[in-house]
């Protein structure tokens, strides 16, 4: 039976360690992996546009020696003719060895995985799951901090709608002595199913604050997020909240010299470009780690080991 990855929790902590160990080895010796996927094809089934995620998947497969095919919007797929996700994946299974699917509807990759004869990777389904972003965040933190336990992690911005934040919290609570500080305006606080059902029920230490300056010195990691316009029904609320937090040089001067700034990108105004050259700003390095972790994931799901 083929294995698909639909949620970050589909991997146990041990499996995640193995995935990140493999990514580390690829970073150390990329030449060793340059032909591991020779003759293999990745299908990128993207029903909605995405720059980073699609390029990252394609770069990952190309760097492993494989090839890619696919579509980049629903308009250029048979979905416009009314084809179901189940039929599309059955067809793609005939052409490719592995598929990455992005879909605006939540649960579409689960439907695909249930009918597929090749591994399916969820590359983002609506506001639901985006496992490879979580793997990217974990690999970035582990590579640059050396560990995933004993950390104080600040999450700032849109904590209500941000799926990357929710997935990362779910993944990090499995590590020992991780403390969270949630920084958001009251309108964008964490939903109760994360705050009450996950954090409180599992006795995870966390604080909720509004002011970023108050907590900056205590953080090991600051995970910034964008306030997403498409989540608001009211333009006025969006305008009021979009620039609630702007991380600039002045604020960075209050942070610890070891604190790392992560962001799932794209950023708008929440991180000033003046801190891009600060060594603590690692969001572009994070993009590269994303490619390495996707390389590791493709190899893992195809069960390929370097010779």
């Amino acid at each position, binding site marked *: 039976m083929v294995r698909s990855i639909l949620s970050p929790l589909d991997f146990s902590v041990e499996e995640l360690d193995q995935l990140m160990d493999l990514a580390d080895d690829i970073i150390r010796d990329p030449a060793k992996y340059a032909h591991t996927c020779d003759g293999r094809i990745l299908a990128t089934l993207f029903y909605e546009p995405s720059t980073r995620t699609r390029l990252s998947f394609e770069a990952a497969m190309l760097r492993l020696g494989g090839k890619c095919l696919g579509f980049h919007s629903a308009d250029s797929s048979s979905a416009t003719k009314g084809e179901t996700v189940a039929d599309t994946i059955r067809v793609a299974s005939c052409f490719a060895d592995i598929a990455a699917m992005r879909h605006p509807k*939540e*649960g579409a990759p689960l439907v695909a995985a249930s009918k597929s004869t090749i591994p399916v990777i969820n590359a983002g389904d609506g506001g639901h799951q985006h496992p490879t972003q979580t793997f990217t965040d974990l690999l970035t933190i582990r590579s640059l901090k050396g560990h995933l336990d004993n950390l104080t992690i600040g999450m700032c911005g849109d904590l209500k709608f941000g799926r990357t934040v929710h997935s990362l919290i779910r993944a990090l609570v499995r590590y020992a002595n991780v403390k969270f500080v949630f920084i958001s305006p009251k309108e964008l606080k964490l939903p109760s199913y994360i705050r009450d059902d996950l954090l409180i029920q599992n006795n995870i230490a966390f604080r909720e604050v509004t002011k970023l300056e108050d907590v900056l010195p205590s953080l090991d990691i600051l995970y910034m997020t964008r306030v997403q316009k498409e989540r608001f029904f009211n333009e006025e609320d969006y305008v009021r909240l979009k620039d609630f937090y702007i991380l600039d040089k002045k604020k960075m001067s209050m942070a610890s010299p070891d604190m790392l700034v992560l962001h799932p990108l794209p950023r708008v105004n929440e991180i000033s470009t003046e801190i891009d050259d600060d060594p603590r700003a690692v969001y572009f390095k994070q993009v590269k780690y994303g490619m390495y972790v996707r390389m590791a994931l493709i190899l893992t799901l195809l069960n390929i080991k370097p010779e």
Partner: protein
Amino acid sequence: MSETEKRKQYKLNVGKIEEGFVIDHIHPGRAMKIYNDLGLDKLECSVAIITNAFSMKMGKKDMIKVEMPLREYDLDTIAFLDHRATVDIIKDGEIIERPRLELPKTITNVIKCHNPRCITSIEQELDHVFYLTDPERGTYRCKYCETEWVNQNTRK
């Protein structure tokens, strides 16, 4: 009016069934929903629906009597719609079994996911499947998008 007089006043005679099942102690007003969701309207056998019958325990209750054997999956639907109801299985005019009703772990095509971003909102042929995630609160989550659905029928 005494309890006995009340019972007499509300007494409604519906013939005894020989083989079939009786769903009793249904929350008043919920019988028609159970009738529809079990698909009893499609049967050709005798079905009696009694609403607002007198009940010592509940004050008022609904009942359904059906003259055909109970299908196993019907129990899940009944439990989901009213897990405090009781079911009596009748054979040769006698109650031979009273199965215990528990909230089903999975419920298929009884409720629909109302999340407009769920894949079920555009692909009509998909089953609407919900998993029980919190039996205490009667919380179910959609298999596809994990949207919460709290079962209001789990009255305390």
